[in-house]
């Protein structure tokens, strides 16, 4: 059972990341970059430089481990699954920061601090949205949240939830309008001094995180493995793939505003919206 779930997590991450890179149209680009020289900057923080993509990848795997692949079958079947995922989100901010900090170069450093400023307030709507989903389930476990969606998926019962979580997903995977770490005005920011296989590994870790975030969104809002006819895991995979396509294609077509303005938007518009979402979900759950 456990071995099967470990394999399921690994396979989902691997094929999902491949799909994410393909959706981005970057398969050939990564293949070409992998063979090139890996440049070292002046006096870098070598340990953190090497480990930042590793932690990003590990957090993606941990996030996917709390997701039930079939009803009642999650690798980490924790009664506090939401807390486990929440700590993954917080550690993503730290990881991206370290990625920008380690090369000891100006553009990555600006990207790192900029991401910290945007990444922290993004965690708040994320947790309100997830807790709202925990209310009808009366549990913080993802297995129970799936169970609570038997009659009605949360995407309909809590209509503000998925749109708010989309913004969180874009921020956690450094994509499109929420890509404040690797922006063009700072020459791709935290990645500006990375070349060759190091750049590829970071891109793969981002793609793996996209799989993981999509899996969480599919579990919380789209009923996870629930669905007729097909077996549970297949439903989950289909929902993950659909959400990934939404994030990749949607992220490309929305402009990114300046970081200071996004900070205000996050606190003054999105956070109150998530309060409202929690209040509505609370009243409906009673």
């Amino acid at each position: 059972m456990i071995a099967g779930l470990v394999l399921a997590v690994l396979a989902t991450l691997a094929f999902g990341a491949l799909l994410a890179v393909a959706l981005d149209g970057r398969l050939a680009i990564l293949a070409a970059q992998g063979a090139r020289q890996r440049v070292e900057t002046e006096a870098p923080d070598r340990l953190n430089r090497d480990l930042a993509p590793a932690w990003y990848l590990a957090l993606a795997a941990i996030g996917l481990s709390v997701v039930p692949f079939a009803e009642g079958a999650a690798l980490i079947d924790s009664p506090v699954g939401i807390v486990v995922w929440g700590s993954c989100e917080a550690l993503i901010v730290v990881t991206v920061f370290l990625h920008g900090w380690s090369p000891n170069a100006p553009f990555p450093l600006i990207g790192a601090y900029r991401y910290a400023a945007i990444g922290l307030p993004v965690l708040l709507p994320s947790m309100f949205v997830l807790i709202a989903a925990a209310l009808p389930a009366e549990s913080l476990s993802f297995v129970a949240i799936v169970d609570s969606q038997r009659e009605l998926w949360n995407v309909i019962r809590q209509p503000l939830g998925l749109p708010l979580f989309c913004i969180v997903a874009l921020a956690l995977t450094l994509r499109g309008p929420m890509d404040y770490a690797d922006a063009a005005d700072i020459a791709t920011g935290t990645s500006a001094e990375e070349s060759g296989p190091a750049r590829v590994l970071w891109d793969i870790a981002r793609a793996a995180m996209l799989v993981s975030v999509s899996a969480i969104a599919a579990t919380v809002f789209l009923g996870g493995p629930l669905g007729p006819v097909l077996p549970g895991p297949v439903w989950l995979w289909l929902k993950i793939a659909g959400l990934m396509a939404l994030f990749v294609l949607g992220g490309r077509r929305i402009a990114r505003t300046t970081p200071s303005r996004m900070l205000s938007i996050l606190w003054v518009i999105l956070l109150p919206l998530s309060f409202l979402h929690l209040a509505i979900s609370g009243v409906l759950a009673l």
Partner: protein
Amino acid sequence: MGMSPLARLALRAPVPVFAAIGPGRQADVERLLARRGLRRALTPRDAAVLLLAGDLPPDAMEPLGRVHDQVPRPRRILRWTDRTETGDAVADRLATAWRGLCGGEDGDDDLQPDAPSNAWRGVGPHGQGGTGMMGGTPYGRPMAMTGLDIRDGLQLDRYTARLGPFAPMLPPGLVLELTLQGDVICDAGVVCPPFAQPADADAPVLCSARMLALLGLEDAARRVIRGGRPGALWLRGAVPRGLGRIEGGGDARERLAGYLAGTPAALAVPPLPELLSGLEWAEAMLVLASLPPSSILRATRLREAA
């Protein structure tokens, strides 16, 4: 041919090009790199081919050497000096160079000597020792020192650097000496004005594409240059209102709206230090991209005359 599937896949990748744009060639290069099969790298670390367009003045040769050496190996430098050579021909040359590099050819060597630009004079195990742990000069560079901030007066470190002439977010040729506190520009000075560009570089299509690229819409920018529609949401709205307001020229948001509607802008731009000081980095770059290159050039010349 005994090529691995990965290597065959790599051959289909668009050529990653870092552009070093010289006088008069900005529009040519921007149109060239919007083609399919080419990809504009925003940092030399992401590139394999360095495209040098135009004849550089002598004082730009040393910066060119720096950028060239920052491209990972194997790398190739391609010169596009002949104005009559078409974009198709250059694109072909770029593709050939890329295939060669993928096929295992040795690239170009460093242009600069392989010696640290300054001797290591560090104090202590990590070199940062000395007075207040900031006295050493590891790798020949001192650590940043504190100074007053212009926004809130906090005493934190000031980071001074010269940016350009090949910084992809600045007009080609422009070298700015910037002092940053965090990501806010505290002081700005023009070291070299941008290279002169023909009127074509002021085309609304190219101006809007530069802004779109900074808004994270590279695909939209390419579509616009190729003559299509941007096909993206929240374009003007993403530019903060009132940013980079210039008398008689509106703010950056209005200029973007104008470019997208096909109206060129002709502006009397104030001196760049005045325009950029006090702005956060993303805002400052957006303001610069919202100005036509000819206006920026006039603004810097004004400064020299004064």
